[in-house]
């Protein structure tokens, strides 16, 4: 039995390890889309701020981990899937046969309709390669414009601010992290960031990015300058990780200029970011974090049913037998709604990978749904949100706000069960919020206490799970690792 996994992110790696555990004799091949060891995108901000080197972003830290588990690692990406012949075509033209296939190809950043996105000095912050480019340009004191203050944008915001750049963040929504936090919390974050010297522009749309100093802005991305080939740093540089990347690298900078002769001087002369309202922002570096989309393009013609992502059933199998999907690319079940949905977060990718792998090796495991949740550290102000934080009709809400202390708790209930929550400035025992929501824990009299004092969450959780016997099933639960 040959299991092939496309994508070496958390979903793919978890699936490979789970397969090995439950199918000791199977052949397992992990196909990576990037020329790197399996790494975590989530760790990139910490690489940028110098907390870790490149090796610190790797998903597994033990030498020889994949060899020891007999997981073959192959350089992709895959360009075509032939589900009738059960064969893959890789970008280098070679083919690979599979018995069971897992699609865990993740997502890539969305490119908003803004002219000038291909200019040197404009980067997404998604891959290690992106991080190397950003590290070259984000020097202390230089003006940087970050496009997007969603969850990913805000994580990058923290890294850029810590790198000492002069940062402006431009967000289309009316507040920061609009899909994770409400107005109260989003505005708290904004004030906090502004006090720390970050300029925050909300309700603003970027119209164009152009070279500064009178050069003609390019009209449209299609007609834009030749995209500089992502420059791979030498093996030597990679061996020495982020430190050598953050060191001044004049050779790399001139390399840019050579590759894009039309913009000789850029980004040395800098860029101008023009907003729809006419405001112009100078930038030596523009980082675009405008959301992500699933990597499903290579599935065209495969017969695999896709929507925004790959459609899966409760066992994470796609519309084609023996083909499964997991992680950011898969539309798995959202625990809060019971519907299939994209929940592009690390813990969900791991759950998907785990469940898909069990089903691939014959251990039938139904996925009961993943809980959407996020935690964000914005220059020291920590916020989190869980589940249906916006609440439901007919439900009840408890809030506690202390604007001066930057503390906020909002709890949303349906009957006596917690269904969603968000917090600012609160970190102790916050995992209990997940526990309460995910197990549909009936809170009884503790719901009333929480309505009065939302901060008593830890007490309520311990009191309820440590006291009255529970009768009957407590509601749907996510499949727990066995």
């Amino acid at each position: 039995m040959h299991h092939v996994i496309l994508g070496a992110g958390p979903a793919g790696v978890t699936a490979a390890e789970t397969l090995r555990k439950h199918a000791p004799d199977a052949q397992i091949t992990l196909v990576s889309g990037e020329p790197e060891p399996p790494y975590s995108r989530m760790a990139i901000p910490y690489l940028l701020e110098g907390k870790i080197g490149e090796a610190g972003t790797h998903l597994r830290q033990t030498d020889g981990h994949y060899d020891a588990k007999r997981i073959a690692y192959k350089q992709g990406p895959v360009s075509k899937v032939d589900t009738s012949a059960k064969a893959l075509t890789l970008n280098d033209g070679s083919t690979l046969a599979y018995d069971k296939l897992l699609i865990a190809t993740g997502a890539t950043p969305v490119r908003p309709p803004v002219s000038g996105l291909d200019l040197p000095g404009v980067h997404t912050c998604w891959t290690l390669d992106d991080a190397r480019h950003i590290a070259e340009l984000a020097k202390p004191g230089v003006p940087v414009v970050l496009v997007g203050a969603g969850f990913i944008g805000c994580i990058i915001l923290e890294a850029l601010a810590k790198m000492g750049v002069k940062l402006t963040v431009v967000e289309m929504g009316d507040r920061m992290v609009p899909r994770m936090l409400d107005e109260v919390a989003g505005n708290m974050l904004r004030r906090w960031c502004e006090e720390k010297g970050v300029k925050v522009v909300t309700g603003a749309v970027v119209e164009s990015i152009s070279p500064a100093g009178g050069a003609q802005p390019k009209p449209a991305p299609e007609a834009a300058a030749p995209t500089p080939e992502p420059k791979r740093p030498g093996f030597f540089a990679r061996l020495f990780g982020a430190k050598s990347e953050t060191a001044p690298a004049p050779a790399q900078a001139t390399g840019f200029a050579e590759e894009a002769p039309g913009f000789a001087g850029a980004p040395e002369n800098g860029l101008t970011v023009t907003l729809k309202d006419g405001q112009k922002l100078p930038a030596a570096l523009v980082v675009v974090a405008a959301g992500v989309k699933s990597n499903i393009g290579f599935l065209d013609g495969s017969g695999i049913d896709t929507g925004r992502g790959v459609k899966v059933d409760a066992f994470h199998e796609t519309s084609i037998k023996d083909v499964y999907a997991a992680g950011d690319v898969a539309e798995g079940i959202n625990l809060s709604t019971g519907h299939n949905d994209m929940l592009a977060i690390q813990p969900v990718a791991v759950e998907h990978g785990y469940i898909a792998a069990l089903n691939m090796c014959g251990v039938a495991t139904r996925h009961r749904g993943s809980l959407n949740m996020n935690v964000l550290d914005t220059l020291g102000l920590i916020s989190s949100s869980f589940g249906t934080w916006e609440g439901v009709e007919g439900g009840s809400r408890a809030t506690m706000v202390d604007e001066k202390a930057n503390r906020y708790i909002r709890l949303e209930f349906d009957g006596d069960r917690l269904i969603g929550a968000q917090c600012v400035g609160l970190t102790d025992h916050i995992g209990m919020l997940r526990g309460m929501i995910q197990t549909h824990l009936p809170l009884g009299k503790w719901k009333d206490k929480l309505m009065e004092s939302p901060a008593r969450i830890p007490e309520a959780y311990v009191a309820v799970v440590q006291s009255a016997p529970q009768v009957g099933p407590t509601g749907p639960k996510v499949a727990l690792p066995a």
Partner: protein
Amino acid sequence: MLKALVIDPGKCTGCKQCEMACSLENEGVFNPSKSRIRVFDFHEDARFVPYTCTQCDEAWCQQACPVNAITTDAMGVKVVHDNLCVGCKVCTIACPFGTVNYNASTGKVIKCDLCGGEPACADACPTDAITYRDVEQSGYDKMKVWATRTSAGTESHGPNTPA
């Protein structure tokens, strides 16, 4: 032989010496807010409940960690490696029991690691509300307690250490 903390809230008097001992052992200060074990005080019910990590077999925190900074040692204990932890806090929201916490002064997360095999809380507990025992011996008692309070074995994982 695997050993585990066995907590009996019925014996707890709420003296909180376990919190002091934990904080001193792990942080070098008497600061209960940095303790990895916490005693919940339900004064209306005259009941105290010591509460900490139960070292899940397949731990949510460990699986959620993006950089492999939480691993299982030979004793089954889930240990945070400070040199690898980037402080992303995903484990703090992933652990449904809320027993992994962020320590803002170090920028890392902290959780109970059973003090490397000699848990200071159990040593400090004057009433044997917290004991450190062979899992084999305590397992049957645990099951008996849970059998009386959950829906007859249909739930494979209980919320936390039983009373």
